[in-house]
C-alpha cells in the first residue's frame, strides 16, 4: 500500500513544525520562568552595589565584574591560540598522522567534564604555580576548556572557504600568508565568531571549574590576582545554601540577559561584516 505523496508531505510538514515549536517552547518557558521570578528584583541598585550578608541583601556588582573579566581574558588568550592552531592544521600542513593526533586530542579535550578542568586548574595554577584562587587562575583554566571548541569551529570555518579562492589568490601572486590573511580568514570569520560565541557562553555559564580556580570571594577584586565570584557561581551558592531565592533568580535573570545581549551584538556585527562584503 502506498500513501499519496501529498499526504506524506502534509505529515512531514506538521511533524517538523511540531518539533520546532516544542524546541522553542522549552526555551521560551525557561526564560519566562526565570524572568518572572527574577526580573522584579533586578534594579539599578541591584546591579551596581556590593552584596551584603553573603548576598542575602544588596547587589551583585563584584560578580558582574567577575562574569565580564574571566571570560574576556580567557577568550583573549584562547582566540589567537585556537585560530592559529586551526590555520596551521588546515593551511600549513597536509593531512597526516600528526594532524590527526592533534585533532583527536582537541576532540578528547572537548569531552572532558569541566570539573576535571577545575581540579587540574586548582592543582596546576592555584597551588603548583602559586597563583592562588584568582581571576588569572580561573581564566587560564577556562582557556583549556574552550580551546578545543575554538580550534574545531575555526577549522570547519576555514575548510568551508572555497578552495578556488585560494587558487585565485595564489595565481595573483600572493604568498601563503597573504592568502590566509586576505582571503581565508576574512571569509572564515563568521564561523570563527560562532565558535568564540559558543565559548563565551560556556565560560559565562561555567561554575565547577571556576569555584576550584577563581574561588568564590564576594569582595571586589583589585587585580587579576584577586579571587572573584562570577554570576553563575553566585547563583549556585545563593540557591544551594538557601541564602536568598529572590536574589538567586534575579542573578539568573541578569545572566540570561547578558548572554542574549552578547549574542545579539555579535550577530549584528557579523551581519554588518557580511553586508559590507556583498553590498
Amino acid at each position, binding site marked *: 500500500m502506498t500513501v499519496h505523496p501529498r499526504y506524506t508531505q502534509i505529515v512531514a510538514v506538521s511533524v517538523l513544525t511540531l518539533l520546532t515549536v516544542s524546541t522553542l517552547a522549552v526555551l521560551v518557558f525557561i526564560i519566562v520562568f526565570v524572568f518572572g521570578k527574577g526580573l522584579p528584583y533586578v534594579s539599578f541598585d541591584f546591579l551596581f552595589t556590593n552584596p551584603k550578608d553573603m548576598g542575602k541583601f544588596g547587589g551583585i556588582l563584584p560578580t558582574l565584574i567577575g562574569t565580564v573579566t574571566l571570560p574576556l581574558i580567557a577568550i583573549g588568550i584562547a582566540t589567537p591560540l585556537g585560530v592559529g592552531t586551526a590555520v596551521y592544521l588546515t593551511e600549513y600542513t*597536509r593531512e597526516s598522522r600528526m594532524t590527526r593526533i592533534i585533532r583527536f586530542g582537541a576532540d578528547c579535550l572537548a569531552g572532558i567534564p569541566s570539573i576535571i578542568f577545575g581540579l587540574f586548574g586548582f592543582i596546576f595554577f592555584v597551588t603548583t604555580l602559586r597563583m592562588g584562587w584568582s581571576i588569572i587562575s580561573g581564566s587560564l583554566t577556562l582557556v583549556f576548556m574552550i580551546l578545543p571548541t575554538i580550534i574545531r569551529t575555526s577549522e570547519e570555518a576555514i575548510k568551508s572557504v*572555497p578552495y*578556488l*579562492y585560494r*587558487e*585565485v*589568490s*595564489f*595565481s*595573483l*601572486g*600572493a*604568498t601563503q600568508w*597573504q592568502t590566509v590573511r*586576505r*582571503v581565508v580568514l576574512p*571569509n572564515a570569520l563568521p564561523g570563527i565568531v560562532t565558535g568564540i560565541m559558543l565559548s563565551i557562553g560556556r565560560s559565562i555559564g561555567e561554575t565547577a571549574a571556576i569555584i576550584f580556580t577563581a574561588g568564590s570571594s564576594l569582595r571586589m577584586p583589585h587585580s587579576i590576582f584577586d579571587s572573584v565570584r562570577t554570576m553563575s557561581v553566585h547563583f549556585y551558592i545563593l540557591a544551594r545554601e538557601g541564602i536568598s531565592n529572590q536574589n538567586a533568580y534575579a542573578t539568573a535573570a541578569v545572566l540570561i540577559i547578558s548572554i542574549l545581549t552578547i549574542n545579539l551584538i555579535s550577530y549584528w556585527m557579523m551581519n554588518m561584516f557580511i553586508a559590507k*562584503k*556583498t*553590498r
Partner: protein
Amino acid sequence: MESNFKFRISNLNVYWGKVQALRSISIDIPANRILGIIGPSGSGKTLFLRSLNRMNDLAPEISVEGRILLDDEDIYHPHVDPVKLRKRVGMVFALPVPLPASIYDNVIFSPSLFNIRNRKKLDHLVETSLTSAFLWDEVKDRLKTSAMRLSGGQQQRLCLARVLAMEPEVILLDEPCSGLDPISTAAIERALSNLKQNFTIILVTNNTKQAARVADNTAFFLMSEMVEYGPTDQIFTMPRDGRTNDYVTGRFG
C-alpha cells in the same frame, strides 16, 4: 629569432601520481601572440597550462619533469620563487571566481599585495584594466558594489581585469568562456586580440571555433600528447595529422 619566444618548453612530462598525464611536450611559444590549445577533455591541456605558472605545485600528487624556459630562465630551477613567477604569468580560470569583495577591491587584489597604496595609481590601474577587459562602461558607476552581484560574463571579464592589473607578461586562460553567453565571449575574444600587443596569451579552449577565431598559432592535444602545433590557418585548413583533421572537422571530440 630566439628572443621572440616567450616560453621554450622541451620534453615536458607531467605525472599525476603514477599516471603519466603529459608525454614529452616540446613547444616554443612566441611572444605577443595568442596560442590556442585545443583538444578533448582529459587530454592534459589544463595540466599543461598549470605547469607554466607552477600552480601544479599546490597539488602534491602532481610531479613535473622537463624544462620550461621563460625568457631563457628555467622556471623550475630551485632558485625560482613560484610566487614571483605567478606575478609574471597570470591566469584566468574556467569558472569566474570573483572574491567576495567590491569590484574595485577585486581588481586591486594583486597590486595591494605588493604594497601599492597610492590612490591615484590604483584608480588609474582599475580604470585601464577594466577598460582593457571591456567591462569599464558597465561598472564604472558601481565600483564599490560587490563583485558577486555581476553576471557570469561580467565576472569573467572582471577576472581578466584582475589579472591585467597585476601587470603580468603572460596571460594563461583555461577555457575562460566555457560557461559564458555569446556576447560576453565576444567581448573576451576582442579583449584578447587587443591585448596581445602587450602580452603573450595562451588560451586553452574546448571551443575549436574560438581558437580558429582568435589564435595565431594552435596546438592540438590528444590523450596526453601534443599531436600537432602550427599556425592556426594551417591547423584548420590543412592539418598534417589525420587525428587533427578529424578533431577540427568535428568527427570526434
